[in-house]
C-alpha cells in the first residue's frame, strides 16, 4: 500500500533490505548548542588524516605558525593538513594516532601561543566568478576531506565526479546511535550547510541536489526548512530512521532507487554523495577562506557529565576535550572514537582529534553491559536478514575463520560496509565484523603481494634483457679487440723468437775467467717467453672473457652462495639433530663450527673466490716462469692451498714463504760460492729464479712484503759476509776471480731485486 502511494508521490523514497533499529541514544547530546572549548596547550597533528598519502612537510621544528597555515603540501590524494592554532612547531615525529592499531604515525607537535591568530584569509563573495577548477583546487588546499567518517579527499572526489554527476546527495542521515554532530551542526549552522551544498552543486553542475535526513531529527529538519525559505534548488528528503541508512550505498538506494553495481562506484549511476559536515567545511573554505582546522565532535556517554557537541580543533588531545566535558573516568574505562557500532576503542587518551573524529563515546561500565561470551554459530541467518548489503554474513564468517580467501572473495566480502548490524543481531554474540576486518586486511595483503610479485617479475625480466644486451655489446667489443691484438703482437713474437734462435745458433755460452758473464741470451729468451705468454693471455682473455664473466657473474655467484648457504643451513639442522652424541659432536667440532653462521659461509665463499683468482694469477705467472721457477710457484700455491682464513694472513704467509725461499736461495748462493764449478749461467738462472719467485708471489700487502724482503736482504748480506770471511780464511786468495764473479752476480741480482721492489712499491 505504501509502495502504491509512493508511485504518486513526487519525492518518493525507496527502502533497502536489512537494517536494524538500535536504540538511538541521541537525546543526551543533541539538546545543547555547539560549544567552543578553551584551547589546548599542545596539539598533535598527524600528517595523514584521510584516505591517501601524507603530504610533504613544509615546516620544521621551531617554526612559528599561524592558524590555518599549511603544514604539508601535495596534490591528488596527498591532502594538506593545517595548523589548528597559532604557535610554535615543537617537534615532528611519530605519535600514536587515532587508529584502532594504536600505532605511531608521523605528526607535527605544536605548542599554542594562546593568541589563536589566523593567517591571511582569502575571502570570496561570489564563487561563481571563479573557474570551477579553481574552486576544487581551493577545496584541496583547505584540506577538506569527507567528514562523515571515511575521510576521502573531497577535491579528488569532486574531480572524479565532474563529468558524470547528475544527482548530488547531501548525507544528513547520521544513523549511528549516540552521534549527533551533524544534527547539531544543521541546527546551529543550517544556512552555512546549505551554502556549502550549493557550492558543491555548482561545481558538479548537478541536475538535482537531495538532502537525505532521518526523521529522528525534527529540530534539524525544521532548521533546514527555515534556512531553505521555500527555495527549491535543494530538495529535503526526510527518510525513515533505520540503521545504516547513512551508508553511502544505502542512502543512494533510499533516495534514488538505484544500486551501485558490485565492484563499481556511485559515479557509475551518476550519483555523488557528500556529508553535511563536508558541505559546511567547503563553505568555510571557499567563502571565508578558512582551511579545515576544526570540526564538530560529539562528547557523550554516561562517564561524561556534560554531554554535548563541541567545536574540536584538529589535533586536540582527546583527553583535553573529555576533561572539559566533565569526564569521570571509571575503572577500566574505555573511550570509543566513532559510534558504538562502527567505532574503535582508543588505545590511549592522548591521541588527537582528526578529520574523521565525529564522536567520542565514554560509556560507563553498566552502560556497556557484561562482555558476552562468543558462542558457536547456530546458522540462524539473523545476520543475513539484517545485512544491508545483501551479503551472507554466516558464510563470510565461516570463510574468514577458515582463511578461505578465495571463497570469502567469491561471497563479496569487499562489499561489506562493516556496519556491524550482523554482529548486533547475532544471538551467539559473535563479533562478526572483526572477523571481516581481519579477513579484509588479509585480502588486502594478498593483493599487495600479488602486485609486488608481478612488479618483481617485470623488473627481473627487464634486468635479464638488459644484461643480455650488455653481454652482446661486450662480445662485439672483444671480438674487435682480439683482431687488433693478433695483428700487432704476432709480429713481435716472431721477431723475438728469431733473435733467440740467432743467439742460440751462435753457440753455447762460455764464460771467460775474469770477464763479465754475458746473460743477454737468457734475457732474450725470457723476453721472448714473456711476450709469448702475454700474447697468449690476451688471446685467451679475448676469447674467454665473456664466458668467464658469465661464470663470474656476481648474481650467479650470489645464487650459488645462497644455495651453499641453504645447504649449510640444512646440514646444520641435520647436525643439530645428531647432537645427542656428544663425543661425535666434539669430534666433528671443526665441521659444525663452519656452517654455524651464514655470514661465515659468505666470508668463506668470498675467500674461495679470492683463492680462485689468485690461483689464476699463479698459473699465469707459472706460464711466464715456466721451467725454472716451478719449485717456487708450486710451493706458493701449496701454501695458499692450506686455506688461509684471512687475506691478510695469506699475505703474511706468502711473505714468510718468500723470505724462506730467499734464505734458501742465499744458502744456495753461498754454496755456489763454495762450489768450485760455479758458472755464471747458473748464477743467471738463480737470478731468474729470484725474479720469477718475486713475480709469482703477488703480495697483498706490498709494504709488508717490502719490509720482509729488506730483512731477507740484510740477512743474505750478513750470510755473504760470513761466507766471504770463511772463504778468505780457508782458501786464502784461491779462486779470487771466481769469487769476484759470484759477488758481481749477487750484486746484480740484488740491484734487480731492488728495482723490482721499487716497481712493486
Amino acid at each position, binding site marked *: 500500500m505504501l509502495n502504491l502511494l509512493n508511485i504518486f508521490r513526487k519525492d518518493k523514497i525507496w527502502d533497502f533490505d536489512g537494517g536494524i533499529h538500535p536504540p538511538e541514544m541521541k537525546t543526551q547530546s543533541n539538546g545543547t548548542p555547539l560549544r567552543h572549548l578553551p584551547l589546548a596547550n599542545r596539539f598533535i597533528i598527524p600528517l595523514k588524516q584521510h584516505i591517501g598519502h601524507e603530504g610533504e612537510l613544509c615546516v620544521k621544528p621551531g617554526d612559528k605558525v599561524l592558524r590555518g597555515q599549511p603544514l604539508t603540501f601535495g596534490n591528488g590524494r596527498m591532502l594538506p593538513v593545517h595548523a589548528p592554532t597559532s604557535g610554535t612547531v615543537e617537534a615532528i615525529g611519530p605519535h600514536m594516532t587515532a587508529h584502532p592499531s594504536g600505532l605511531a604515525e608521523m605528526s607535527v607537535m605544536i605548542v599554542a601561543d594562546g593568541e589563536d591568530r589566523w593567517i591571511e584569509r582569502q575571502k570570496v563573495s561570489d564563487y561563481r566568478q571563479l573557474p570551477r577548477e579553481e574552486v576544487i583546487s581551493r577545496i584541496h588546499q583547505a584540506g577538506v576531506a569527507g567528514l562523515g567518517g571515511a575521510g576521502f579527499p573531497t577535491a579528488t572526489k569532486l574531480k572524479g565526479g565532474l563529468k558524470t554527476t547528475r544527482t548530488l546527495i547531501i548525507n544528513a542521515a547520521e544513523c549511528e546511535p549516540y552521534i549527533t554532530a551533524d544534527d547539531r551542526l544543521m541546527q546551529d549552522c543550517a544556512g552555512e550547510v546549505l551554502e556549502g551544498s550549493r557550492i558543491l552543486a555548482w561545481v558538479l553542475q548537478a541536475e538535482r541536489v537531495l538532502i537525505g535526513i532521518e526523521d529522528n531529527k525534527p529540530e534539524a529538519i525544521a532548521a533546514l526548512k527555515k534556512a531553505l525559505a521555500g527555495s527549491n534548488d535543494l530538495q529535503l528528503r526526510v527518510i525513515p530512521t533505520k540503521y545504516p541508512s547513512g551508508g553511502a550505498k544505502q542512502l543512494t538506494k533510499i533516495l534514488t532507487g538505484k544500486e551501485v553495481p558490485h565492484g563499481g562506484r556511485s559515479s557509475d549511476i551518476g550519483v555523488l554523495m557528500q556529508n553535511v559536515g563536508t558541505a559546511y567545511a567547503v563553505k568555510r573554505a571557499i567563502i571565508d577562506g578558512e582551511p579545515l582546522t576544526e570540526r564538530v565532535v560529539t562528547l557523550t556517554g554516561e562517564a561524561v557529565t556534560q554531554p554535548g557537541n563541541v567545536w574540536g580543533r584538529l589535533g586536540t588531545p582527546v583527553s583535553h576535550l573529555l576533561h572539559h566535558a566533565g569526564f569521570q573516568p571509571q575503572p577500566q574505562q574505555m573511550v570509543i572514537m566513532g559510534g558504538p557500532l562502527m567505532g574503535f576503542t582508543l588505545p590511549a587518551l592522548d591521541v588527537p582529534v582528526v578529520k574523521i573524529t565525529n564522536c567520542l563515546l565514554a560509556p560507563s561500565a553498566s552502560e556497556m553491559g557484561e562482555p558476552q561470551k562468543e558462542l558457536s554459530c547456530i546458522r540462524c541467518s539473523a545476520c543475513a536478514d539484517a545485512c544491508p548489503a545483501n551479503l551472507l554474513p554466516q558464510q563470510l564468517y565461516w570463510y574468514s575463520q577458515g582463511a578461505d580467501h578465495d571463497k570469502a572473495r567469491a561471497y563479496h566480502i569487499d562489499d561489506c560496509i562493516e556496519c556491524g548490524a550482523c554482529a548486533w543481531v547475532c544471538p551467539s554474540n559473535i563479533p562478526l565484523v572483526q572477523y571481516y576486518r581481519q579477513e579484509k586486511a588479509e585480502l588486502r595483503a594478498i593483493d*599487495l603481494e600479488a602486485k609486488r610479485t608481478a612488479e618483481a617479475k617485470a623488473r627481473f625480466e627487464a634486468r635479464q634483457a638488459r644484461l643480455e644486451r650488455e653481454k652482446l655489446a661486450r662480445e662485439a667489443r672483444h671480438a674487435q679487440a682480439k683482431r687488433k691484438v693478433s695483428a700487432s703482437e704476432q709480429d713481435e713474437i716472431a721477431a723475438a723468437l728469431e733473435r733467440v734462435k740467432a743467439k742460440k745458433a751462435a753457440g753455447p755460452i762460455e764464460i771467460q775467467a775474469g770477464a763479465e758473464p754475458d746473460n743477454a741470451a737468457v734475457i732474450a729468451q725470457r723476453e721472448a717467453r714473456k711476450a709469448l705468454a702475454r700474447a697468449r693471455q690476451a688471446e685467451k682473455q679475448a676469447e674467454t672473457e665473456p664466458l668467464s664473466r658469465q661464470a663470474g657473474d*656476481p648474481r650467479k655467484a650470489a645464487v650459488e652462495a645462497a644455495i651453499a648457504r641453504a645447504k649449510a643451513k640444512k646440514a646444520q639442522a641435520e647436525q643439530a639433530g645428531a647432537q645427542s652424541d656428544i663425543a661425535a659432536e666434539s669430534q666433528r667440532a671443526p665441521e659444525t663450527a663452519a656452517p654455524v653462521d651464514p655470514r661465515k659461509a659468505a666470508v668463506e665463499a668470498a675467500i674461495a673466490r679470492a683463492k680462485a683468482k689468485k690461483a689464476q694469477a699463479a698459473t699465469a705467472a707459472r706460464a711466464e716462469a715456466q721451467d725454472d721457477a716451478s719449485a717456487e710457484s708450486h710451493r706458493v700455491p701449496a701454501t695458499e692451498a692450506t686455506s688461509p682464513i684471512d687475506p691478510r694472513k695469506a699475505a703474511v704467509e706468502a711473505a714468510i714463504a718468500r723470505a724462506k725461499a730467499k734464505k734458501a736461495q742465499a744458502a744456495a748462493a753461498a754454496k755456489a760460492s763454495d762450489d768450485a764449478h760455479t758458472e755464471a749461467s747458473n748464477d743467471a738462472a738463480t737470478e731468474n729464479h729470484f725474479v720469477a719467485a718475486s713475480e709469482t708471489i703477488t703480495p697483498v700487502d706490498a709494504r709488508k712484503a717490502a719490509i720482509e724482503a729488506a730483512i731477507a736482504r740484510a740477512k743474505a748480506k750478513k750470510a755473504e759476509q760470513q761466507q766471504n770471511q770463511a772463504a778468505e780464511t780457508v782458501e786464502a786468495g784461491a779462486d779470487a776471480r771466481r769469487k769476484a764473479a759470484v759477488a758481481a752476480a749477487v750484486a746484480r741480482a740484488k740491484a734487480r731485486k731492488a728495482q723490482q721492489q721499487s716497481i712493486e712499491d
Partner: protein
Amino acid sequence: MTAIWIAIIAISALSLIFGGLLGYASRRFKVEADPIVEQIDAILPQSQCGQCGYAGCRPYAEAVGNNGEAINKCAPGGEQTMLKLAGLLNVEPQPLDGDEQAKEPVRTVAWIDEANCIGCTKCIQACPVDAIVGATRAMHTVLSDVCTGCDLCVAPCPTDCIEMRPVATTTANWKWDLQSIPVRVIPVESHA
C-alpha cells in the same frame, strides 16, 4: 544378410561423419591451454632468491613442471605457496623443512647501513630486481618498495653492511590484531 551389411555400412557412414565432425571441431575450437610452467611461475613469489637450489623462480617452475621437482622448496613462499602448487598439480602436499616459522615466512627487506657502505656496487650487481640504487664510491640504498627480500645482496657485501629487516607494521598494513587491542561492539540493547 543384406540387413547386416546395411547396418554395418550405415554405422560406418555415421561414425565417419561424426568422426569428421569431431575432428573439425577439435581443430576449429582448439583452446590454447596455459602451459603448466607459466601457471607454476605465476604462483611463485618471484623473489628470484635461489633458495630452492635453482637460479630463479622460472627455472624452479620449469623443474617442477617438467622434471617433477619437489614442490616444498620455495622458502619465501612458505606453506601457502606449497599448498597452491599442490592444488594446481593435483599432488599430495609435501611438508616444508624447518619449524613453524618456515611455514609463514616474515616478509623482510634489505637495509643498508649507509655509514659502512663503501660504494663497491657489488650488491647492485647481485640484485635481481634492480632495487638498489647507488654508484661507484657513492653510498647505496635499497628501494624498500620493490625489494623482494631475496637475501642475494647480503653475501657479496665486503663490509657486511646489508641486513635483512622485517617490514615494520604501519596503519596501512596492520591486520586488526584483536588480541592486543580490544575492539568491541557495545551491546546497545542492554539499556534499551
